[in-house]
Structures are given as structure tokens and as C-alpha cells.
């Protein structure tokens, strides 16, 4: 009886959605129309730089939540400083930019680069795009803007190759953070561990008391754990040596680190493979697990859940890495063959500027790459991170693209996957040695 009615209603709903979409569609076409006048103003570039006209297409994977809000805040700073340059936000979501990087790769293969794009500072950018001659060195820009004075010394070599600096870091996240539930530790008379042995002892105690010692998630979070255990066991110098060929992956020291890693895994929840990083970190603030090793974007997540620092969650450097800041950074590059290089450079200036970084980072939940940002803009955890950033030794993250290029990291990840399946440390170490020879610094 109601089939015709349902059909009619359906058509009405589709029609109304289509009409609204038409209305929305018209709105999104408006910016394209204003491009034309801006382009014809290009010859007037001989005027003061502030009235440069043009457009900059910025490609990233910041599309939701704090990331998108941070990007919009920085965009607002950019638009106030360069009102004649149109900002085109070409963001594509996907964890760690997996979709964005695929789109970017196809565009670069077709000779259609955006003006600037986001990437993880370090080998992920250098090993991919410098090797492919797709990004420009930025030393002149750094000199002109005085960035070498405000960014940490230990950072610059990690984002350079052969003396050329290739990206402008906007934010800094810390990878080697141990999150814990203060109540669970207090109830079980456990201190926050400083060394790996103390950590295992603490987790033994918790396990005996029936508490889940460690919360882990899907495979990449285990890669994240691996890099912190490598750092905690080997120390910063030997850790750095892994990535420049001076530390032998087949050495007994690395073997000890891998055994520590296997031990750490044994304290993890049995359903880890089915949890995202969010689910795993949430276990800690819910009181379902005591420890979680995750980067400090987890802090932003905890605050979005309404949790209170030092009451619902606490933090420390991962065991064995006190005084070392294992960083990752989102940064922007200048494309070779960018459609509008001047506009792109203008964007990079904002990205590296105090105003730009102060607009972006508090919203995003990270700290500035510059050491001179205003601390009062940041929350409690971030302020402590800022202190550490300016005093600690800086080393790079593996999982988040600083120390290893994409090919090497993929091979390490595959070796890890095989290890998670069979638990054989010897095979794991051999696979890591092979990975270094085939795609890494041991070639």
C-alpha cells in the first residue's frame, strides 16, 4: 500500500538533498571565480611583498579535529599577512597520510605538484622526495628568517642531507612517552619506573595483582613500542648509530634490546591486534590498564575525553630514555616546479614564524619547533614537553618517519609482523639486518 508513498518520499528526499547540494556546490565554486582577478594582478609583484598576489595549494592530511583546527588557525595568520594570496587547502585524510601520500605520488608522477605539502620531517621526506628530486633546499630561507637560532641544534642535522635543509618543521611531537594511570600505580604500591628493569618489575607486580600491565594496539603501535625500547636499551648514541650505519643491527646489544622488546610484549593485552591506538590509550584513562607507550597526541585525546592531567593520567619518559626527546615533526616543503613558488615561500615563512606556530600548536596539541614560543598558551603537559625540548638530547622516531626512509621502514615493519607471528628473536634480528642492507644505511 505504501510503496508509491515511499517512492515519492524517497524522490523528495533525494531531490532536497540534491538541491541543498546544489546550493552548497555553488558556494564552493565561488572561490574559483575569485582566482581569475588575483592571477591578473601577478604583474604587480614589483610592489611591496605584502601585496603579492597568487595562490598556494597546500597538501596535507589534516582534515579533522585538532589537526584541521590548527591548520585553519595557521591559515588565518597566513591570510592576514598575505591577503592577496589565496590559500587552497587540499587535504586528504588517512592514518599517517597513507591516502594523501598515494595521491601526492600520482600527482608528482604526472608532473602536477602542489605548491607545498605536509610530510614528516626527516628521512620520510628526504628519502622519498629529495631522492626523487621533488623538493627544494631551503637554506636561504632559514638564513633570512633566522630560524637556525631558534630551532634546536640537534634537530637541524636530522632534517638535512649533505648540508641542505629540506623542510620547515611546524610542530614537534614526542614519541617516547610512557602514559600511566596514577590511581592504579598508587593502589598497587608501584613507583613510576625509570629503567627498563624497574619497568618489568613494576609490571610483574601489577600482573600479579590482576591488573593489565601494558595496553597496546595494532601493529604500528608495536613498532612505536619497539623504537622506544631500542632507545631505552641502547641509549641515544647507539640508537642514532642504527640509522647511519655505525651500529650493527646484528650486534649483541641490539639482541638484548630485542629481547627486552619481547618481554615487554608479554605484558600486553591479548586483544591488542583489534584495537586502534585510541582504544589502547583509552584503557589507561579508563583504569583498565596501567601503562601505555604512545606519542603525546594521546594527551590531546585524553583532554578531549574530559580527563584531567596528573589525576586521570600521568606521564614520564619511556624507561631508559630520561633526558632524551624522541621526536617527530610535521613540516612543510617547497615543491620543485611549484605552480607559484613565491606564494609557497610565503606559506613557509608563516609556517616557520612565531605567530604561525603559536596559532597552530596549542590547538593541535603539540609544541612549537621553535624554542621561543609563548609557554602560557599551552596546557600543563605541553609546557613540560617544551622544557624538555629545549634541554634534552634530540633523537628521531622510526615509526613517524624521521630516521628511516619509507622503504626501510616498510621492511622493518614487515620483519616486525613476522616476529609478532612467530616470536623468534633470531629471525627478527636477521630480518632487521637484511632490511638495513637492502633499503637502509648499511647498503
Amino acid at each position, binding site marked *: 500500500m505504501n510503496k508509491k508513498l515511499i517512492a515519492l518520499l524517497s524522490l523528495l528526499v533525494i531531490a532536497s538533498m540534491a538541491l541543498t547540494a546544489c546550493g552548497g556546490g555553488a558556494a564552493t565554486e565561488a572561490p*574559483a571565480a575569485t582566482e581569475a582577478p588575483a592571477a591578473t594582478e601577478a604583474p604587480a609583484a614589483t610592489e611591496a611583498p605584502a601585496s603579492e598576489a597568487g595562490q598556494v595549494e597546500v597538501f596535507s592530511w589534516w582534515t579533522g579535529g585538532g589537526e584541521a583546527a590548527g591548520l585553519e588557525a595557521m591559515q588565518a595568520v597566513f591570510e592576514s599577512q598575505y591577503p592577496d594570496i589565496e590559500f*587552497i587547502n587540499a587535504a586528504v585524510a588517512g592514518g599517517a597520510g597513507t591516502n594523501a601520500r598515494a595521491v601526492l605520488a600520482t600527482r608528482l608522477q*604526472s608532473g602536477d605538484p602542489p605548491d607545498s605539502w605536509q610530510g614528516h620531517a626527516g628521512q620520510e621526506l628526504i628519502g622519498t622526495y629529495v631522492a626523487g628530486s621533488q623538493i627544494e633546499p631551503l637554506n636561504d630561507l632559514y638564513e633570512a628568517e633566522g630560524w637556525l637560532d631558534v630551532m634546536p641544534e640537534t634537530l637541524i642535522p636530522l632534517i638535512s642531507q649533505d648540508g641542505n635543509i629540506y623542510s620547515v618543521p611546524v610542530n614537534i611531537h614526542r614519541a617516547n612517552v610512557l602514559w600511566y594511570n596514577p590511581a592504579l600505580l598508587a593502589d598497587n604500591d608501584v613507583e613510576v619506573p625509570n629503567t627498563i628493569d624497574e619497568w618489568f618489575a613494576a609490571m610483574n607486580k601489577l600482573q600479579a595483582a590482576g591488573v593489565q600491565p601494558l595496553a597496546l594496539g595494532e601493529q604500528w603501535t608495536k613498532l612505536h613500542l619497539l623504537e622506544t625500547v631500542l632507545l631505552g636499551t641502547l641509549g641515544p648514541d647507539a640508537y642514532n648509530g642504527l640509522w647511519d650505519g655505525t651500529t650493527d643491527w646484528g650486534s649483541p646489544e641490539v639482541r638484548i634490546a630485542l629481547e627486552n622488546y619481547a618481554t615487554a610484549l608479554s605484558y600486553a593485552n591479548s586483544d591488542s591486534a583489534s584495537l586502534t591506538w585510541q582504544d589502547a590509550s583509552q584503557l589507561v584513562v579508563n583504569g583498565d590498564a596501567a601503562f601505555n607507550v604512545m606519542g603525546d597526541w594521546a594527551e*590531546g585525546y585524553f583532554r578531549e*575525553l574530559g580527563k584531567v592531567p596528573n589525576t586521570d593520567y600521568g606521564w614520564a619518559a619511556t624507561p631508559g630514555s630520561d633526558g632524551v626527546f624522541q621526536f617527530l615533526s610535521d613540516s612543510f616543503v617547497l615543491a620543485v616546479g611549484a605552480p607559484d613558488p613565491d606564494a609557497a615561500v610565503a606559506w613557509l615563512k608563516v609556517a616557520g614564524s612565531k605567530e604561525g606556530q603559536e596559532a597552530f600548536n596549542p590547538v593541535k596539541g603539540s609544541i612549537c619547533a621553535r624554542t621561543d614560543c609563548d609557554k602560557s598558551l599551552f596546557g600543563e603537559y605541553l609546557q613540560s614537553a617544551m622544557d624538555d625540548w629545549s634541554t634534552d638530547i634530540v633523537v628521531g622516531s622510526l615509526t613517524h618517519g624521521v630516521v628511516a626512509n619509507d622503504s626501510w621502514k616498510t621492511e622493518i615493519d614487515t620483519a616486525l609482523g613476522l616476529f609478532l607471528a612467530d616470536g623468534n628473536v633470531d629471525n627478527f634480528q636477521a630480518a632487521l639486518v637484511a632490511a638495513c642492507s637492502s633499503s637502509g644505511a648499511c647498503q
Partner: protein
Amino acid sequence: MNFIRRNWLYVPLVAMAVFYLIPTYVMLVTGFKSFEEVDLKTMWNLPRGIAFDNYIEAYNKLSPSLRNSFMVVIPSTIISSILGSINGFVLAKWKFRGADFIFPLILFGMFIPYQSIIIPLVQFMRAIGISGLPSLAMAHIIYGIPITTLTFRNYYAGLPQELLEAAKIDGADMLGIYRHILLPISIPSFVVVLIWQFTAAWNDFLFAVILTGNQQWPVTVALNNMAGSQIIAWNVQMAGSLLAALPTLLVYIFLGRYFLRGLLAGSLKG
């Protein structure tokens, strides 16, 4: 048929309905929750309040892209279905030499993994100067041809040859047979093909994100972007997915009317 015997069918039907509804329930319920309520432990719980905030937010973020989706999906679905019907007719009922070779040739194209051809696809589209939504529609039409051809060809192959013989004796040529005899009874097959093509084109993400720029994204890319990359708000995401699935569902309901009975009844007589 026996009244009581037929009604016991409702038991397994309702049991199956439960199987299909359980995930839908989770999606619906999550779509009404606030961000803090989204937790594995409480996934079965009803939301604390029925707030439409998530749906409104999702709608605002998705509606600009809806137009793009419609502009791509509707033409590409119709064109690829018609092409499939014609191909299927030619290949199934007119056994010219090579028909049995051309069919597997076209069919094999269905199995190509799209990830391995996106680079040459983008480069080819650039070379012939087609970009944006038209290129996406073209891709959906072309990559839809194998499967629409398959469905129609097998459907027509199952039809009795007497139908065509009778028409030929009456002097009809190929086009006439197609228009007056085959097309009317193709409707259930069209329904199946239209459903598939609409869904595949509507839900496609890979071609959409690679072939279109950010002002022309269809709704699947907007949906993906709504999720964000690092901290994902599943409540809004679920709400958005249900909204994005609505046009497709309406198409199913609308086309379902055409699963008519006994289209061939009477065609063999006389």
C-alpha cells in the same frame, strides 16, 4: 500454497533480519552519542540523549560534495548499464565468430586491481585532457563495462532461443528485437546492474580521491576527511556514513519495485 506452511518462513527471515540489523544498530546508536561516550565497553548502550548534533554536523560537512557524487554516479550508472545490456545482447544472442573470445576479453578486465593502474590512468587522463568529475565518470563507466556485460550476457544466455526465433520469423531485425522483446524482459537484470553500478560508483574512494581535486570531491572523500587522520570522532563518522548511505538505500527501495513476477509468463504461448 498452504497458509500455515508459508508463514513459518517468517521465522528464518526474522532471524536473518536480526543478523543484518545488529551492525546497523551499533551504527545508529553510535551516531547519536557524544564523543566521550564512544567506547568499546559501552557500544551496546543506548546513547544518553538523542541529540542530532552529529547528524547535523555530518550533513553540513557532506552536503557540498553530494552534488558532485550525483553528477558522477547517475550518468555513469545509466551509461554503463546500457552499454552492458547492448554488449550482453550482442555477445549472448548473436553468435558471430569471435563472440566467445571477446566476452572473456572484456570480462577479464574486471579483475584488474585498481591500485596497480592508477598511475597510468591519471597520466592517460591528463594526456587526453579530461580531468575532474568527467574523468571520474568516464573511469566508472569504463571499469563498469566488464561487470555489466557479464551480468547481462549471462542473463540473456539463460533466455530461451525461441523468443528470438519467433521474432526473426516475423521479420524483426536486431534493433527491433532488442527494443521490443529483450528490453522489456531485461528489467530484473537492469535492476541488479543498476544497484551494483550505483553502489560501486557512489562508494568508490580510490578513483574519487585520485582523479578529482579538492573542490570536486564526491561524498566518499568528504566522508573520509570528516574522520580525520589521527584522533577519529566515530560518533560523527557513523552519523555521516548513514547519511551517505541514504541515497543508495533509496535507490534500492525504488528499484526493488521492479522485481516483478513472471515476466516471461505467456511469452511462450501463441
